[in-house]
């Protein structure tokens, strides 16, 4: 009975999304406020029913209702409740429902929070959002229905992938989808703006909080995924340039470019056409990623459903959505007015450089991911594009981006002078080189690469601080004044400072983990030990036991330092009888200075165990850096709502031209920091 209610909810949601779409487009055409309001109600309704359907699916999993096919295929009575619930989105159908839930959530949120938008614009945005919903609800109902029943009802489910029985499954997919699917709002806003015609770039101001929200979630989602891989895969890797990983990285890269180009549109009324294109492309990357993961077109450890039939459906959606968006862009964009010219050596110029490099990096990752497919189609040869390719291409592109990241925020808008900025970045250069030399000396010249990495990290971190220094005039004005200025700084500026700081931390972590890592392997029996990074690693004992649905072998390993400090590690091997498979649970001791990572391998014939150990200096900063970046985004998002109207930089001409609303006196006063 309950699954049928879920099914019915999906049908209702489909109906409502059709209404949302139709009302969203028809309302403005007929200039009817009632029809436009209908699109809002439909958005709320669609979200409600998708949410109920999702809740029902969760309940079916939580109660192990094996009369439903997906529950029988992906769950098991012995799984802990936590993971039973997470299993709701641990397979194709359930995760597609989550996809649509997030889509509906954003639609409803725009309907609710978008009250400051002009009615026609909001209606069109909801119309596009509804259209995407129609596509995907059709996809779910016809090819991936989670509520399909199974007769006869099996007594037990077919279990679950043991790799997914980890806290990561609870947090990584939802965050990823909030980000991935959240960029649908960028797409909707852009398409609505193209339909409306020239609107002075105002659409960017309305779209910005949504773009930021999606970006924040995707940043967290990718960081969580990397952290999950690190803790679960047993060899301390955290990024593999796997096609599905790339599929999540590409929207992130374009989304980052979008966040930055939107700044230029808002502040300088320039790059509007480019930003429209970028908005469409970012979500297209999300759609492409959805396609890659579920069609089986590329081999990947992450591949969900390997089903070309479903793949064809998603491809059609991709063609209609992206093709439609790009066609609309091709026809309407030339008619949009051009923005204002700016010198290339300026804040806008640095943001343009940011976009150029990010788009090129995205294109490179795209090439690496899809080139083997292209080759296969056009000839008999079959090639692989692996880590070495990305390392060789990603680097020369990321390096100038990281260097320029510090200079950019310190440049003036519209036109700056070389003499000016050279003085501004002086402290950054000095400190970066100091760290470089100090690190080189500390490692006795043996690890120059580490010195370079840490120097770069310092450059980035100091650069972030320099933004604060400049804005608060630290060193130029009395400290009390600087304090006041700092407190009055808009949240958006703090957001940029923290986000750029996050990247510095990330680079710091990358440097340590890649250039200073150590590894070793040994065969140990109980009581035996080996030396590693100055500690004595002793296998104390091996014990066995049972978990909720697995049996485990656990090793107790003590890592003793010369000064007596002991680190206790307990790596495990888990055997899941239902799936006849094993996973390894590495034991990691994380400190700000580095991780000691130990994994248990196979037992050899003489009874000893293979133990692998790794040292990853500074690794924790990789993920902390990611989270700090997201935090920066949150600050910028919070700050966004308090800023409406022009900033002190908007010229009178702009306000006169009507491209900006006239300032509210209170707002102008609050900005008053020249």
């Amino acid at each position, binding site marked *: 009975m309950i699954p049928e209610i879920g099914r019915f909810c999906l049908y209702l949601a489909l109906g409502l999304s059709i209404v949302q779409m139709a009302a969203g487009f028809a309302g403005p055409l007929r200039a009817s406020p009632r029809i436009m309001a209908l699109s809002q109600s439909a958005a709320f309704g669609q979200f409600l029913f998708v949410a109920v359907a999702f809740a029902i699916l969760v309940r079916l999993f939580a109660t192990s209702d094996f009369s439903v096919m997906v529950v029988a295929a992906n769950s098991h009575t012995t799984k802990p409740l936590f993971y039973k619930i997470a299993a709701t989105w641990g397979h194709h159908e359930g995760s597609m429902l989550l996809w649509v839930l997030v889509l509906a959530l954003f639609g409803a949120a725009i309907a609710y929070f978008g009250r400051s938008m002009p009615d026609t614009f909001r209606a069109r945005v909801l119309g596009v959002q509804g259209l995407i919903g129609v596509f995907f609800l059709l996809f779910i109902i016809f090819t991936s229905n989670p509520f399909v029943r199974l007769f006869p009802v099996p007594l037990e489910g077919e279990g679950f992938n043991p790799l997914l029985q980890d806290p990561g499954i609870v947090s990584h997919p939802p965050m990823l989808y909030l980000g991935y699917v959240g960029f649908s709002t960028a797409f909707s806003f852009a398409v609505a703006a193209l339909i409306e015609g020239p609107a002075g770039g105002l659409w960017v101001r309305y779209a910005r909080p949504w773009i930021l929200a999606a970006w924040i979630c995707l940043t967290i989602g990718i960081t969580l995924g990397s952290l999950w891989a690190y803790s679960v895969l047993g060899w301390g890797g955290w990024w*593999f340039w796997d096609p599905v990983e790339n599929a999540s990285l590409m929207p992130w890269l374009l989304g980052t470019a979008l966040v930055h180009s939107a700044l230029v549109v808002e502040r300088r009324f320039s790059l509007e056409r480019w930003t429209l294109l970028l908005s469409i492309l970012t979500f297209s990357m999300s759609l492409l990623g959805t396609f890659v993961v579920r069609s089986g077109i590329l081999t990947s*450890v992450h591949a969900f459903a390997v089903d070309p039939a479903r793949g064809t459906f998603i491809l059609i959606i991709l063609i209609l959505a992206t093709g439609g968006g790009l066609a609309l862009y091709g026809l309407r964009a030339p008619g949009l007015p051009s923005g204002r010219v700016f010198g290339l050596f300026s804040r806008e110029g640095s943001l*343009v450089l940011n976009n150029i490099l990010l788009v090129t990096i995205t294109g490179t990752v795209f090439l690496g991911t899809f080139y083997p497919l292209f080759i296969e189609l056009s000839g008999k040869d079959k090639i692989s594009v692996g880590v070495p390719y990305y390392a060789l291409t990603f680097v020369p592109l990321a390096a100038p981006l990281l260097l320029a990241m510090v200079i950019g925020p310190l440049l003036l808008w519209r036109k700056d002078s070389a003499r000016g900025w050279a003085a501004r970045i002086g402290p950054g250069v000095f400190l970066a080189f100091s760290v470089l030399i100090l690190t080189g000396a500390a490692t006795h010249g043996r690890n120059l690469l580490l010195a370079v990495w840490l120097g770069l990290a310092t450059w980035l971190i100091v650069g972030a601080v320099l933004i604060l220094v400049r804005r608060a005039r630290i060193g130029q004005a009395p400290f009390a004044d600087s304090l006041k200025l700092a407190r009055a700084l808009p949240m958006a500026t703090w957001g940029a400072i923290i986000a750029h700081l996050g990247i510095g931390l990330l680079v710091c972590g990358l440097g340590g983990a890649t250039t200073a890592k150590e590894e070793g392997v040994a065969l140990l029996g109980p009581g035996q030990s080996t030396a590693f990074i100055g500690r004595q690693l002793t296998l104390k004992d091996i014990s066995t036991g049972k978990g909720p649905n697995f049996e485990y072998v656990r090793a107790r390993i003590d890592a003793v330092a010369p000064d007596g400090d002991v680190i206790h590690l307990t790596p495990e091997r888990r055997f899941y009888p239902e799936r006849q498979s094993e996973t390894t649970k590495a034991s990691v001791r994380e400190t700000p200075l580095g991780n000691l990572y130990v994994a248990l391998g196979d037992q050899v014939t003489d009874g000893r165990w293979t133990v692998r150990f790794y040292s990853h200096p500074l690794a924790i900063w990789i993920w902390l850096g990611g989270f700090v970046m997201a935090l920066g985004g949150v600050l910028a998002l919070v700050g966004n709502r308090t800023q409406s109207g022009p900033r002190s930089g908007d010229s009178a001409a702009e306000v006169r031209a009507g491209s900006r609303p006239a300032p509210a006196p209170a707002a102008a006063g609050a900005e008053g920091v020249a």
Partner: protein
Amino acid sequence: MSRRPAPRALAALAAMVLTAMFLTLGAGVAAAVEPDEMLSDPALEARAQHISKELRCVVCQNQNIDDSAAPLARDMRLMVRERLSAGDSDEQAKAFLVARYGNFVLLRPPFQPNTWALWLGPFIILGVAGAALVFASRTGAVDPADDAVEDDPLS
């Protein structure tokens, strides 16, 4: 004092160093090499592991042969070590496997006519994106009422 040449040279040097440094990015660890496979000569073993990072486990999903626990990956690891012990150079050892499995086994795609687009693509994209964006920023109106503004609140 002319500042232009020095910053450019510094930038070039920085780019080269950074390129060298990033080449270690993404390098995995030899997760599946068993102690009984490892060669007794540390230099040869280091070479073997270095080569293995560029060889694909053909029955796995995007792993190199050192990272995979698959039996075929083990065979390939042993073969690499055998070839090196027999005196092959790094290139010869790789070519041995390419002769049997094709270019698919190379994680770094070769530079040959059908992969020119792959290796030169990034430069082309950079050129196109650069041109597009520079055009986008150069076309349009110049507003004489616009003054350069310092320190606007938005970053």
